[in-house]
């Protein structure tokens, strides 16, 4: 083994002296790379740098690493090794899955319908909206208030659209953590002979990835959410399903994704997924307890706060809460000053003027969508961090409500009043 001392320095955090005071609660945005994955990938940056397509030992060494990684992942997904296609991100995998189907239809001189749902990631929604320009139809299902797509909603859409080419429903939502019942949904899809794609980027770290058990035809996973590298991803695609590539060039990745493979990234992704698979149950349980503790404390100790999404069918690491009368970006930046890093569904923190399409999609008001904060927990999250965060949050919400024009200390605030009225009726 070579001496990679400067990499070790990175691994053990010596370049980040301030790390002790950080409370990073934004693991759904991205995870750090876990050190085992980095260590396994490091040689492929350095002396094992060969091009996997080269006909010499240097190339072969890299080729073996990629195929080894593919094998590991195929085992986790319970699929054939030829069904794992490495890409450059989750977004790219999604584009390949959706546009790959669209281009295939176009080449046959056909058009058709894509069925998806309102609370998908923008990678899905924007890709689908683009296919509309080519003459495809898209149908976006409305989830129930918990964010769940009901079996009958999908069945009805499939009945109404016999020319459906693909159904794409995410495994777990990136904002509210709602987990969809893929087994049931894919079964409905198959009743109509329609293939089923799922964006599993958020779910991969915690949920069952057995594609046979779930009945999945295509599945997107990326490295930056599972403690692998940013800029890495994969698409599982069933052999029988034919799609067109988006990137043309060499014969890489079964002619579906040209370009020299990101060898270290692929090696890291396989290692990360392998470890995730091993730790899933234990870590899922630990995070579920922490998340429950956090949600319970916030809802109990801060008045007029609401949990977004469902209590049960929820990712272990997701807590998304709306605070009445305050705006999310303000909360976020006040938290930031305390070293607490989270994210918000407010329009102000995005580059658009609309708040979270996910929260509006499950029927939340604009006010509560603007006032939402997502805390997403991860490996380094401790109970102490959660308690510190809730304590700071209490102070911040109190202060921001005091200067808010949408909060009235004496009267019950608007949303709460409405709710009470509804209850009385």
């Amino acid at each position, binding site marked *: 083994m070579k001496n990679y001392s400067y990499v070790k320095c990175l691994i053990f955090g010596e370049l980040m002296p301030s790390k002790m005071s950080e409370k990073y609660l934004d693991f759904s945005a991205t995870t750090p790379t876990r050190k085992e994955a980095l260590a396994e990938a490091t040689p492929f940056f350095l002396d094992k740098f060969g091009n996997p397509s080269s006909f010499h030992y240097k190339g072969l060494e890299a080729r073996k690493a990629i195929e080894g990684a593919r094998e590991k992942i195929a085992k986790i997904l319970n699929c054939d090794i030829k069904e794992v296609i490495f890409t450059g991100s989750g977004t790219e995998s999604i584009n390949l899955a959706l546009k790959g189907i669209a281009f295939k239809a176009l080449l046959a001189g056909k058009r058709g319908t894509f069925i998806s749902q309102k609370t998908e990631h923008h990678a899905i929604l924007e890709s689908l909206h683009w296919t509309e320009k080519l003459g495809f139809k898209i149908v976006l299902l409305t989830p129930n208030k918990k964010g769940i797509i009901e079996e009958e909603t999908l069945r009805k859409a499939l009945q109404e659209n016999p020319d459906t080419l693909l159904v794409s429903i995410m495994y777990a939502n990136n904002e509210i953590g709602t987990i969809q019942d893929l087994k049931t949904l894919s079964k409905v899809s198959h009743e109509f002979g329609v293939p089923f794609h799922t964006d599993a980027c958020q779910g991969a770290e915690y949920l069952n990835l057995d594609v046979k058990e779930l009945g999945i035809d295509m599945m997107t996973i990326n490295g930056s959410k599972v403690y692998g590298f940013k800029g890495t991803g994969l698409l599982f695609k069933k052999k029988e399903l034919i799609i067109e590539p988006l990137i043309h060039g060499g014969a890489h990745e079964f002619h579906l994704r040209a370009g020299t493979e990101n060898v270290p990234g692929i090696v890291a992704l396989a290692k990360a997924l392998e470890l995730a698979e091993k730790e899933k149950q234990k870590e899922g349980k630990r995070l579920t307890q922490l998340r429950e503790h956090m949600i319970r404390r916030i809802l109990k100790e801060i008045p007029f706060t609401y949990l977004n999404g469902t209590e049960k069918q929820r990712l272990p690491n997701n807590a998304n809460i709306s605070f009445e*009368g*305050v*705006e999310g*970006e*303000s909360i976020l*930046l*006040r938290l930031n*000053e305390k070293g607490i890093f989270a994210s918000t569904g*407010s*329009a*102000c*923190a995005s*580059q658009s*003027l609309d*708040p979270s399409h996910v929260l509006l999609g499950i029927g939340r*008001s*604009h*006010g509560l969508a*603007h006032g939402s904060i997502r805390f997403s927990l991860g490996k380094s999250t401790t109970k102490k961090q959660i308690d510190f965060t809730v304590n700071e949050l209490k102070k911040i919400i109190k202060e921001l409500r*005091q*200067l*808010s*024009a*949408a*909060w009235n*200390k*004496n009267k019950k605030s608007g949303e709460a009043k409405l709710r009470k009225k509804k209850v009385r009726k």
Partner: protein
Amino acid sequence: MKVEGQDWFYTDKVKTHFLKPKNYLKNEKEVKKFDGYGRVGNMKCGDIMEMWIKIQKDKIVDVKWRTFGCASAIASTSMLSEMLTEKGGMKVDDALRIRGKDIMDRLGGLPSIKIHCSVLGDEALRSAIKDYESKKVSKTKTK
């Protein structure tokens, strides 16, 4: 973190006013002593501003405000309240001439997507002045 050449998401001035806002209404009971009130914005776009002003001899001598909105919305209302009350208060005529750009300049600029937030502050102010003037008219009428 470098955002637009700075170490924060907004200018230092915005940061200061956001983290330590000035002149906001701390006590609802204070409302009584003010002569004019204005409220602008709506929940859909995510910014609401309220402003209370006290006027003596055509000068704004006291200002209180409340804002629902992002950091730049809070900072810009706080900045405006400082602009109005510094140097012993601003003449109503001068206050009516304040526009969003003036507030923005004092803040050292805002990202383009945020400009609509600061524009609200001057609207709330004009609405409060209008309220004051309509009250004055009705008072003289009853006399």
